[in-house]
């Protein structure tokens, strides 16, 4: 697939944006500007961007509890997302729910998921509705390696398969479910589990944004055309802890260093420079991202906390 330069620069910009967004949250957390818990996706930016750019406006998105990147890649307004994470009334959900439970109807984000595995049955319902209404959309259901051990994963694979539902299951395999390595929790590779149900599967280097994009696009077009489910497993790594202030003693230092060498952003910058993009252009993008992040931070900080309204009692 030949990608236009403009698209490549967009990939880079979005990945940089997500990383700076996440580090802004770390800064907020350290200075107690964040109230609730957050799960950050530093190191996994290529997964969010490569998949997010493969979808159409009419597609439905079900992000995970680590969903900031997935939402930003989808087009969620970062100001309102940061305000939501900061518990402010200008947030996507009026600051009610924070990092892990937000919805963004404007972008067809039908809810992040704080209960691991609960996205599968909901994705089935969305996929069913797409088929019943003969829509041309697909549902993108993100989940992590650890979540593939929930019973609901298997029910989801079964329903998607017997009903031919247009759902793309996207596994972000970052090796750890909280602090437990995937190998300790299951003897079968995740894409192999889906194969058992006759689901078309794909795997990709989750730190290579172009590979993620191309394979996701191909699989999602197969899903759209054939009205059949698919699953893509992306191998990646979260640099930070499970949650913002986790000191992550459960991971060997060498392993972390090994993965930091595979930094999806640095790697992509180097690739683009080799392809002839100027260093100045990249610095320009970085500076523009920084400016936007600072604006989002200012917006979040200056917004008020929400007050109780009657619709919060049913």
């Amino acid at each position, binding site marked *: 697939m030949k990608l236009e330069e403009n698209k490549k620069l967009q990939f880079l910009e979005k990945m940089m944006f997500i990383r700076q967004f996440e580090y802004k949250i770390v800064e907020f957390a350290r200075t107690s500007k964040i109230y609730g818990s957050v799960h950050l996706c530093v190191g996994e930016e290529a997964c969010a961007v490569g998949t997010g750019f493969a979808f159409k406006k009419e597609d439905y998105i079900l992000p995970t509890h680590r969903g900031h990147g997935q939402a930003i890649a989808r087009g969620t307004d970062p100001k309102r997302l940061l305000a939501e994470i900061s518990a402010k009334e200008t947030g996507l959900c009026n600051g009610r729910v924070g990092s892990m439970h937000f*919805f963004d109807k404007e972008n067809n984000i*039908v*809810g992040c998921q704080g*209960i691991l595995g609960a996205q599968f049955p909901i994705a089935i*319902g969305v996929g*069913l509705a797409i088929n019943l209404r003969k829509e041309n959309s697909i549902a993108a259901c993100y989940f992590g390696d650890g979540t593939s051990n929930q019973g609901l994963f298997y029910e989801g694979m*079964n*329903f998607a398969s017997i009903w031919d539902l247009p759902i793309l299951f996207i596994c972000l395999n970052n090796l750890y479910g909280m602090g437990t390595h995937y190998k300790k929790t299951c003897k079968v590779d995740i894409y192999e589990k889906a194969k058992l149900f006759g689901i078309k599967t794909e795997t990709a280097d989750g730190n290579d944004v172009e590979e993620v994009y191309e394979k996701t696009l191909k699989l999602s077009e197969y899903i759209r055309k054939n009205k059949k489910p698919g699953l893509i497993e992306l191998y990646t790594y979260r640099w930070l802890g499970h949650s913002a202030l986790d000191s992550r003693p459960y991971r060997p230092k060498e392993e972390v260093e090994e993965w930091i060498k595979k930094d999806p952003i640095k790697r992509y910058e180097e690739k683009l420079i080799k392809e002839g993009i100027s260093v100045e252009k990249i610095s320009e993008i970085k500076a523009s991202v920084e400016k936007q992040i600072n604006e989002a931070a200012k917006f979040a900080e200056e917004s008020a906390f929400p007050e109780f309204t009657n619709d919060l009692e*049913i």
Partner: protein
Amino acid sequence: MTRDLTYAEALREAMREEMKKDKGVFLVGEDVGQGYRGCFAVSTGLYEEFGPSQIIDTPISENTILGCGIGASLVGMKPIVEMMFADFVAVAFDGILNQAAKVRMMSANQYKLNLVIRLPGGSKNGTGPQHSQSLESIFMSIPGIKIACPVTPYDAKGLLKEAINHEDPVIFFEHKKLYSLKGPVPEEEYRIPFGNARIAKEGKDLTIIAISYMVNVALEAAAIIKEKHNLDVEVIDPRTIVPFDLETVGKSIKKTNKAIIIEEGIKRDGVGAEISSLIMENFFDYLDFPVKRIASKNSIIPMSPLLERAVIPNKESVVKEIEDLLII
């Protein structure tokens, strides 16, 4: 025009009318279509009429069946989810507790769920501990959902039509003993708004608030009390327990000064516990004595008939409780 329909027929008619009106209304569950036509045959004939796009059979996977309802209603459809037995909804509890009930409040009204969850509950013919429970009270403590428990065919139809078009998830309890009972149902369009209790029988001496099938038990007991003691019992059927029509209950208590609550669910932390507290908080000064709760024992629902009878209130046990209370 009004004709007599069974409770099951009334439910079927409600679904049929709404499905005809709106292709976004569909029924999903185990054996609702081509197999049993609903475990209690409620959806008989609907598959033939509406086909697989509105009557959807599923694998045995309650959790994902409920997910079908949540996901489809998130994107604007109006699903009706049927659980074979109310007890089985426990398998899908996360979908109610953490998902459906919270969507509207979490999303700050971006998303509203037109979702009905039909639960055949209560005890009939010794179906035993995992097929007989009355679980209303468990759902009462989850903010975000409404709970309907119709008793007559008229209410079954009117409340189900309302539930299908309601913008919060509705847990719809159908007592298994009611399915075959007949009652008048008009052919004309009607819906029953939530939070409106029905006076099942007027009376001036004692107020009974009864839940689901216990309305019929209360009416039988009231007839006996009238005959034996010439006392007029007023029987109130709340029809929905969330929202609860406290006003109608209050009016009755101001008249009778006595209140009893009867339910088939277990007594501990039951529906009666909540209603009793509401009455005490709001109408304490009108009461001659503390609110009395009659409910199932804090037990399993046993299969053996004598044990089942010992656990669940029946007309004789209700009459005795009333007599003890009034020191007759």
